[in-house]
């Protein structure tokens, strides 16, 4: 087993573990914290996949901003106490587990019977500089690529988010 593979195995185990912890804990704060852990592990995985920019954005935006928002809301609503909510029923958990497992089986099965990905078309150049800020920046603001339009639209989307969040949070509209 090569070093890359070993490294990947560790990271994969960590991410699965933290995801399971998110679901298992009854305390939402703990769930949130485990989710943060999961996100950071994923960021490292992105690094191994030559997605340097995305890894950074993941940490800054996802783990840094979105999870903070989650924790703020949990604190605001004072849901820290686990007794606040009733236990989920056994039927529900069985159904959920069954659903998840069947989902996993379906996806893996689909993958197994597919024709496969074929040979990777990665070049050493793409592996090294494929995900850098410069590459992404060039692609994002290139007038010939479709991403520029999506970029502008995203700004509108974020504006909508701001406006919506403020409206929802007001006491009197």
């Amino acid at each position, binding site marked *: 087993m090569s070093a890359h593979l070993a490294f990947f195995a560790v990271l994969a185990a960590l991410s699965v573990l933290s995801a399971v912890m998110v679901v298992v804990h009854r305390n939402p704060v703990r769930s949130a914290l485990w989710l943060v852990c999961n996100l950071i592990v994923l960021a490292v995985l992105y690094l191994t996949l030559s997605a340097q920019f995305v890894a950074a954005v993941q940490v800054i935006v996802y783990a840094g901003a979105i999870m903070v928002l989650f924790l703020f809301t949990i604190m605001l609503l004072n849901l820290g106490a686990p007794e606040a909510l009733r236990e989920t029923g056994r039927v*529900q958990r069985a*159904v*959920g587990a069954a*659903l998840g497992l*069947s*989902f996993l089986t*379906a*996806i893996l*099965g*689909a993958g197994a*019977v597919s024709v496969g990905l074929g040979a990777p078309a990665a070049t050493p150049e793409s592996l090294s500089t494929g995900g850098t800020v410069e590459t992404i920046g060039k692609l994002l603001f290139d007038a010939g690529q479709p991403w520029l339009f999506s970029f502008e639209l995203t700004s509108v989307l974020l504006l909508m988010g701001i406006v919506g969040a403020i409206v929802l949070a007001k006491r009197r509209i």
Partner: protein
Amino acid sequence: MESLATHNLVWLITALPLLGFLFHAFVGKRAGRAVVGYIACAVVLASFAMSVIVTVDLMGLPAEGRRAVASLLPGLREPAPWIEIGPLRATFGALIDPLSMLMCLIVTGVGGLIHIYALGYMAGDKDHARFFTYFNLFIFFMLTLVLADNILLMFVGWEGVGLCSYLLIAFWYEDMENSKAGNKAFIVNRVGDVGFALGIMAIFATFGTVAFHDPSGAGFLDMAARGVSAQGALTVGAATLIGLLLFAGACGKSAQFPLYVWLPDAMAGPTPVSALIHAATMVTAGVVMIARVSPVLVHSPVAMTVVAVVGVFTAFYAATIALTQNDIKKVLAYSTVSQLGYMFLGCGVGAFASGMFHVTTHAFFKALLFLGAGSVIHALSGEQDMRRMGGLRDRIPVTHGTMLVGWLAICGMFPLAGFWSKDEIIGYAAGFGVVGPFLAVAAMLTSLLTAFYMSRLMWKTFWSAPRFRETPRVEDGFGGGGAANALNLHEEEEAAHGGQDSGAHGGVHAVHESPPSMTAPLIVLAVLSAVGGLIGTPWANLFERFLEPAVAAYPIHHGLPVVPGLVIGAAIAAAGMGLAWSLYSRRREQGAILSDAQRRRIAPHRAAANLWYVDAAFTKVFVEWGGAVATAVWRRIDSGVIDGLVNGVAVLTDVLSERLRYTQGGVTRIYAVTMLTGIVALVVGVLAWGLGR
């Protein structure tokens, strides 16, 4: 086929009564009784005149080609098309040949006389206009029946006369019994009509056409005469099927066993109705139809034998019942059934012309007898039970004299009409193969019974001592004479209904003769009954020659030598009449041979008086059991199954929606689970589909 010079008058024969019907239907009530009466009689008599003209014209053609087609709609040279669906073609056309013109003359002639009688009879009725509306409509349909150039149009007329029969039997419908009698007539007719309809279909299937004759020889009677059908040769099986089916229809209309049960009940209608429809014309429609399709029938010995046997059986059977009846009209009704049996016997043995001859003579004397009976009933203020009649010979001489002639005719006494026609049939029956002699013997026995029961009727009504209470006539301001009597007539007859033995209430008002409007037709019919048979004597059978082109030829021959046959016939009639004389002349006071107690005790008498329990059997099987089946079907199937299904759908919807409500419960998690389940199913499905290919 030739064409007639007077073909453009043919449409008038049927149109005139139709116009009379329309007039009476729309403006009859307002026009007043006199106008309605005159128009009703005038259209029928005018139709008679047209028939005479056309007949004379027809006789101008040579004998073999004595057949023509004319349009029933005015102004057209060729008959107008009516149905044209693929190979099925029918026209509004009239077939002018000796058979149809004979029937036209009888229907309009005798019908006209009966219309005149009805003028007097129905003068006081509150539904005067309605009566003549139906009466004219009946004439129209009967003429359509006999004149039709294709069997479909004949069926239209057939159904139409059935309708008019129902309307007229139930004329005084306020009494439930009359309505029931009308229903019975119509329903039993319908049973026969099923056979007729199937027969028409069989004809179309066999021959490919429903037209009787065609100029190019393509009518089914032409084909049958040549022995061909649409598939090649005409098979005996096909002819038998057609013959039996059509005969079933004839049994319904012409009251043969077992579909005769409606005719005695039909006496609930006014007497002119009984005379016209149930004696002279409608009931003979079956015989006419059989004679018309005789070219097909002669190919099937089985069918002919069936017709003959059923005919003679019915004749004998009805005669036994007539022996025991007390209502004068019922005796005549069963007598009609019996005489119709004779006609079918004649047709069944192949002597179609003889059958039609008996139709003609029967029309004369039976109409005479019925109208005379009406006159008797009128004279006795509505009494119909012969046990309360008697001694009327000198009180109503004209009625007595004419009924005497009718009596002699129906008994078959030389030289009146019934003698010639009846003996001709018996003679030909005797010569019909192996069963002929049996048929002839049965027919002769029936003749004996006929003579006896008709004599019994005459004795009880006229010649025995009076057995009714008479109150002197009160001058009541109506003035004297016939008109006043006529005004009361329908009430009397109405009052006489509700049972065979109800009679005049409160005794009989002074016995009086009928007015001239009623006695004149009686006299005319008496003359016809007397001399009408002379056109068919065995030595110069003008009648048979007249009808020859119209009916099928069949190797008939006299089973008895001619003169001995006639003598035997006269002897039988004399024996019957003599037996009655010997029995009744000794009992002039009672006017009856058996006492009431004896009647109940003697089993055959009791059985015959109860109509051999046939009516009771029909009631039990069809009315009671049929009703039970219908009720069960209604309860179990209609209410249970079908309603259950419909209601069940509603209940099912209710239950399902109760359960399915939870999927829209608003619980978000359930929505999520449902969505995810759907996604899994979708993925698996697409995988499986992809793998399957």
